[in-house]
């Protein structure tokens, strides 16, 4: 028998549409989790690996970069290549071209190459090899609020979700080792691979939306994704007063589909101002309208995750 450790709860913050305030909310939660009234040891994950911003407001002492090796890309050895062209018709990514300097040799465009290796098997001269690619770095850093696991995908690389899975896995193990009961994951926008990887194993999805047609449209898609992967979801409306009609539409949708609106945050300049200072909004101005609204959402989220707590 292995010893049974209590598994940390995982909260994933998503939105569908970008720029609705996922990271600002996640950072505010980081500050709240450290307040004496909650004292909830929490591990943080920035799962938006190609536009990672949580560290800009949690200001960690950044850990050593650790290399992330993703897939491989094809490379043609110009000495062995005879330019026969057998590789060209098998490439479905239009990634192989005659070299502009030497028409007897072919060349792989690394931007277009998908790493499928079809060309490797098609080459009669054994001139093509698959070369593993370092696609980014990941970090175990220390913030004033707790450990942060984050990563940096190199620009333009494949975001297959593997790097997201890796940082999440590291965070989960760290939470187990340090007996932290909560992992908060700041998720990526959209609904594709990195979002699916970020939702895997989550206990609750907090969907941050804004009252716009685009916010509503994309919220429906991300709620559908969470439902598909059987992750319970609640909704938070940010900048709620900017378009009241939009906010009503979100509420109607939530009511008809059975999702709880866990809170609303009005438009408040203290949020961008806090970001400029590199601070969570709660630390910048705990009495701002946004801070008070977020505290209410935080308490509602804890109630969802852990059940109503007795004091």
């Amino acid at each position, binding site marked *: 028998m292995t010893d049974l450790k209590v598994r940390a709860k995982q909260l994933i913050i998503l*939105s*569908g*549409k*970008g*720029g*609705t305030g996922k*990271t600002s909310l996640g950072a505010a939660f980081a500050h709240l989790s450290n307040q004496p009234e909650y004292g909830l040891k929490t591990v943080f994950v920035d799962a938006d690996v*190609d*536009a990672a*911003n949580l560290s*800009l*407001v949690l200001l960690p002492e950044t850990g050593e970069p650790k290399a992330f090796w993703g*897939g*491989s890309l094809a490379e043609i050895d110009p000495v062995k290549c005879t330019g026969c062209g057998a590789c060209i018709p098998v490439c*479905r*990514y239009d990634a192989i071209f005659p070299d502009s300097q030497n028409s007897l040799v072919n060349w792989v465009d690394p*931007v*277009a190459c*998908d790493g*499928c*290796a*079809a060309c490797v*098997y098609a080459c009669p001269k054994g001139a093509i090899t*698959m070369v593993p690619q370092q696609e980014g770095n990941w970090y175990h850093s220390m913030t004033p609020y707790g450990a942060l696991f984050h990563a940096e*995908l*190199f*620009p*333009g690389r*494949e*975001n297959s*979700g593997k790097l997201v899975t890796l940082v999440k896995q590291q965070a989960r193990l760290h939470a187990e080792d340090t007996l932290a009961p909560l992992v908060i994951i700041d998720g990526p*926008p*959209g*609904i*594709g*691979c*990195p*979002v*699916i990887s970020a939702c895997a194993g989550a206990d609750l999805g907090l969907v941050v939306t804004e*009252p*716009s*047609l*685009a*916010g509503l*449209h*994309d919220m429906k*898609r991300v709620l*559908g*994704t969470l439902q*598909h992967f059987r992750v319970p979801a609640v909704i938070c409306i940010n*900048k709620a007063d*900017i*378009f009241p*009609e*939009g906010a009503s539409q979100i509420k109607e949708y939530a009511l008809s589909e059975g999702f709880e609106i866990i809170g609303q945050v009005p438009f408040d*300049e203290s949020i*961008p101002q806090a*970001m*400029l200072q*590199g601070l969570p909004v709660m630390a910048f101005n705990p009495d701002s309208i946004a801070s008070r609204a977020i505290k209410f959402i935080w308490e509602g989220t804890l109630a969802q995750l852990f059940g109503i707590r007795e004091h």
Partner: protein
Amino acid sequence: MKIAIASGKGGTGKTTIAASLARSLISFGDVWYVDCDVEAPNGHLFLNPDLKQQTRAVVRIPQIEKEKCTACGKCVEVCQFHALAKVGKTILVFPQLCHGCGSCTWNCPENAIVEVPNPIGLLERGRTDDGIEFARGVLTISEPMPTPIIRQLKKIIDPCEKATVIFDSPPGASCSVVESLRGADFALLVTEPTPFGLHDLKQILGIVDDMHIPAGVVVNRVGIGNEEVDAYLADKNIPVLLRVPFSKELATGIAAGKNLIEILPEYQQQLQNVFQKITSLVHGERS
């Protein structure tokens, strides 16, 4: 002229700028708006096209012909994406991992693999009332891969040489953004003057630089942040082609699905000026 609109950070106003730019150019000739943000496509909310044509976006996945298959395992060996597995005498296919590269088909010594279309989304085409040619891809919920849809979307459009084509890219700075930028003559990068905006702008500038695509910037929501984006762009000699101030009037109008010109008609001229600047930058680049 093909112009890709990208941003790094999400929610900076890519679609607002892309749709407004398309609207501003209709008097100049054929205009295409192509929504490459297939995970969260929003262009239709601003342009209200009549989406008449719909086709499925597919990945061609292997289907094993059992009577021919000897379970030699060659297909499993050549697949780089672990989309095939051998269990006893059976080859299993995992459609969501398959990239549709065809390597297993070509390498099967028994010719036991045929490819069947596995739908992962939709490709839609139509027109707007004012004559903008509209196309978009929509990734099916729970499907992981946006990139094949973007690739297929670009193949179904057939603009004439003189048309202006606007690719509205997804946020971020990964493979799907690269696919959206492929073939573009110019990248118009929309950012906001905040630390998040600047951080993610640097990521997208890294991509356009690697792809040798000339770029210019729209700074949106001027007034909510600081001067660091401007200082950075001045230092790197990257032109700022438009500044849009933050106002509640704009925020509310955009939330309701209005483009900039519908909210403030002076943006018609301003966006035409942006297009002229792009044209001269692209031709300058070529000469």
